[in-house]
């Protein structure tokens, strides 16, 4: 029984890892062709939020950090800053959902909006604005559409995470 439980746990996280890879692939190769006003969305922030919501703050923090690092490792032009933001976002999502909020899609989208906005604003200030590479126009031209588009695609990661969590007994009907 003990071995079965461990196997189930390994299986669950293997599926989460597969989901993360699929999401990263979708972000890089599918959504890069589905630009809106020249903007592509970020899906991994939403995934960190959803894992935090369904698997708890600790899992959210670890997975958020790993997802940010993974994005950093596989994409050019993405700073390690995302790993920090996603980790904090995953942790905060876990805490908030356990204490205050439910695990509905609307909550996931709200938290995804927050994490994407935090990542985007920090990136803009530290990487673009302070070194003088871009002004506030860039935030309007790229930042806001990126936040909106990334939030809008959150259901694509929320639903599989919910399904996985439900299958592994993480949520009740």
């Amino acid at each position, binding site marked *: 029984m003990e071995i079965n439980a461990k196997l189930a746990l390994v299986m669950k996280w293997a599926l989460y890892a597969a989901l993360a890879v699929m999401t990263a692939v979708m972000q*890089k190769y599918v959504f890069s062709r589905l630009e809106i006003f020249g903007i*592509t969305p970020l899906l991994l922030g939403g995934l960190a939020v959803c894992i935090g919501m369904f698997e708890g703050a600790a899992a959210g923090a670890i997975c958020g950090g790993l997802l940010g690092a993974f994005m950093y490792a596989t994409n050019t032009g993405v700073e390690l800053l995302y790993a920090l933001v996603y980790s904090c976002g995953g942790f905060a999502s876990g805490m908030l959902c356990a204490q205050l909020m439910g695990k509905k899609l609307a909550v996931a989208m709200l938290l995804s909006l927050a994490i994407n906005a935090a990542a985007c604003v920090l990136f803009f200030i530290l990487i673009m604005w302070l070194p003088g590479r871009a002004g506030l126009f*860039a935030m309007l031209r790229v930042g806001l559409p990126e936040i909106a588009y990334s939030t809008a695609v959150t259901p694509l990661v929320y639903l599989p995470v919910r399904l996985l969590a439900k299958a592994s007994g993480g949520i009740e009907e």
Partner: protein
Amino acid sequence: MKKLLHNKAVISLAVVLALIIVMGVLSFAVQGESSPVANIFGVLATPFRSAADGISGFFEEMYARNYEFEELQAENERLRKRIADMEADVRRGEQLVEENERLRELVGVTQARNDLDVEMANIVSRGSSNWESTFTISKGTGDGVEKFDCVISSEGFLVGQITEAGENWAVVSTVIDTTTSVGAKIYRTGDVATALGDFELMYDGKLKLAYFPESAVLLNGDTVLTSGVGEVYPAGLVIGKISDVYPSESGAGSYAVIEPSVDFESLVQVFVVTDFDINE
């Protein structure tokens, strides 16, 4: 005897025998040609022979199909594979022709510019950030590629600069990226200026030309080259052509827009300038 002669059977036999004899005589008489009787039989039998041929052909075909189907299928498979191989060869050939053309162009550039040492690299991935214009290439520090090396196209047009280099990969920031700041020279007038990446223009695939002398008269279509100032970029590489000029009254805020000569979307291969002579 009379009875015998009145017997119908005997009469019939006699008639038949007579006919046979007549036919025999006729056949003997017209040797080498078909006899009229044989001819008549032949004409009358033609439709039946055709039908019989058709039916036997049908059954022969059925037989062949049954027994040769597997063989035909195998042959079909072989031919399909051969076509696929030939198509792959054609594709490979086309790729080699394209690569050859690019290398020929580069040979022209390097012959004209023998001060450049270049390393050929393929573009392996495009940057996915909404904030930057970058791509990753297949060569890195292991091939002599270093940070700040300049990157050109096969035609010798300026593509960008290496901003990050790993063992077997490197990130190139294109000239339209906001990190770009290149010493530039207007070919027609010889005026020097600075080509700068600009976020607003980056989304249109263009960059800015600023800090040129107040006396400079820029025209649309003027070619902009690298000046070689700063010793990061070799002098004389084509950056692009001026597409718009925005003069200001004081002159200090005047700027022009450069449309790069290189088409970033269609780039598949680039050349990293690993070393170049500095012309004093």
